[in-house]
């Protein structure tokens, strides 16, 4: 099972002192956080993609390429890559390039994006969001799997004799996750292609997550990719930890109360009860995270949101130390218990290349 972190890349004032980092500071902080993730033994770093303030990561492959050069093991991913408003041709090129530079340590998570104006800014129509996701992804797959593509569709210029370069490393396209919170169409899309499904459950009740993942698993089997338990599932998580849980609550509360996403709404207590947010001791985080399996079955990837709502870099790095040293080793051990040997691991470049070599032989 893979463990990692995902970042939104928001520039948010620290509510305890009113200080707002500059974009430069925030971008550098994201890199420092990624390097820390590798240092403390995490497997994955994923960055969001946004095209409006207060978010900085508009160019994920630039950032991930830089991180790739400064890490050795970390898998670089996205959360999410906008399959609706990006040209699928550019996604095919950018991520294949990144794959070469990172020696295969790359996958990506596709999402639609929910910021209305981004669609017209990039020449698209939000009402076509699902249709864009479907058509663009179908083209992206072909660009990575066929050398020469003739293609005609609804949303972009036709392609005649187009070759996307560089070709994917070793002829193995990056593994794709489809991220969604509430659209069953996206769970269906992931199931249809036998791709991974990431449910970003961090702001949602467990029952909703369970239903979406079960739909994906059922449809994955329906489309002939294996058993429901062979489907590739990822979940989000959101934690803040201190040795004593009261200290964690006291320190995190002002960040919670003013957080851009849920601030000024439910109380910290209500939100921790209704969503996966866990604020407390490392042991509480371990227990809560292990409980995710009860709803969705044995799964492949667990990403935590650690740097948001104005938390200072120093605090985030401390949190990553706790996550890497005290939490994830226990999670690895405990999740392995009772996990049937035939439940697959998340695909990596090495595993996909091995499959390709076997099928070619």
């Amino acid at each position: 099972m893979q463990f990692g972190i995902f970042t939104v890349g928001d520039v948010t004032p620290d509510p305890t002192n009113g200080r707002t980092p500059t974009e430069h500071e925030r971008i550098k902080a994201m890199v420092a956080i990624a390097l820390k993730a590798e240092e403390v033994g995490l497997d994955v770093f994923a960055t969001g993609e946004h095209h409006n303030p207060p978010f900085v990561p508009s160019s994920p492959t630039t950032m991930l390429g830089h991180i790739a050069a400064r890490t050795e093991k970390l898998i670089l991913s996205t959360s999410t890559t906008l399959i609706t408003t990006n040209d699928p041709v550019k996604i095919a090129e950018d991520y294949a390039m990144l794959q070469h530079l990172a020696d295969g340590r790359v996958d990506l998570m596709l999402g639609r994006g929910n910021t209305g104006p981004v669609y017209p800014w990039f020449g698209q129509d939000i009402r076509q969001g699902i249709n864009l996701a479907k058509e663009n992804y179908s083209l992206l797959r072909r660009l990575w799997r066929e050398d020469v593509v003739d293609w005609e569709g609804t949303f972009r210029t036709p392609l005649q004799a187009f070759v996307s370069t560089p070709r994917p490393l070793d002829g193995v396209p990056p593994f794709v996750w489809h991220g969604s919170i509430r659209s069953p169409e996206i769970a269906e899309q992931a199931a249809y292609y036998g791709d991974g499904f990431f449910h970003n459950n961090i702001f949602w009740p467990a029952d909703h997550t369970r239903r979406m993942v079960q739909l994906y698993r059922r449809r994955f089997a329906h489309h002939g990719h294996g058993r429901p338990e062979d489907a590739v599932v990822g979940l989000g998580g959101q934690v803040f930890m201190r040795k004593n849980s009261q200290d964690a609550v006291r320190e995190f509360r002002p960040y919670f109360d003013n957080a851009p996403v849920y601030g000024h709404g439910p109380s910290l207590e209500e939100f921790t009860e209704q969503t996966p947010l866990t604020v407390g001791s490392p042991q509480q985080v371990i227990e809560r995270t292990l409980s995710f399996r009860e709803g969705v079955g044995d799964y492949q990837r667990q990403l935590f949101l650690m740097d948001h709502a104005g938390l200072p870099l120093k605090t985030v790095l401390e949190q990553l130390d706790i996550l890497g040293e005290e939490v994830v080793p226990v999670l690895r051990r405990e999740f392995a218990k009772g996990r049937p040997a035939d439940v697959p691991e998340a695909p990596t470049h090495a595993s996909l290349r091995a499959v390709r070599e076997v099928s070619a032989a």
Partner: protein
Amino acid sequence: MKLIVVSAGLSTPSSTRLLADRLAEAARDELTARGRTPSTEVVELRELAGDIANHLVTGFPPPRLGAAIDAVTEADGLIVVTPVFAASYSGLFKSFFDVIDPDALSGKPVLIAATGGTARHSLALEHAVRPLFAHLRAVVVPTAVFAASEDWGSGGDAYTDGLPGRVRRAGAELAALVAARPVGAEPEDDVTVLERQLADLRFD
């Protein structure tokens, strides 16, 4: 068969709830007369005020609000009653329907009603409440019932039914629509439709 009554009254007891109960009784009596006695359940929005605000902020309903939304979504008929605030429905009333799936009320029979201090507000039902439910593609019964304070202590006149007459008429209209609905119609399966669309696109 289930009738759900949504009341946005703020005081306890409220004249809004009183009107809601009278309307529910009228619809129930008419359905019973047709041999289709419904169960009725009242959703008091006042008790869900905090949950509705939290849903607006977080995007998901706390459990109790979730149950109320499910009840409305699954109802065979709705009776919705709001006090008139500033020439329209109350903000709480609107916010509740804002957090319900826009398709949840499609084709659903709805009786709209409102309360207010004077009969001069009665057209709020026609220029505010009816368009809201038209937007939600609900089937709104012809008689919308407005109860001004004075209606609780007066009868009809040569030109208009009194409140009890209007309540009976509206209840009967709702009952007729509810009774005419097909039983247990299956909604179209979105996933199957999508599978077909993806199959059209798929190359490999």
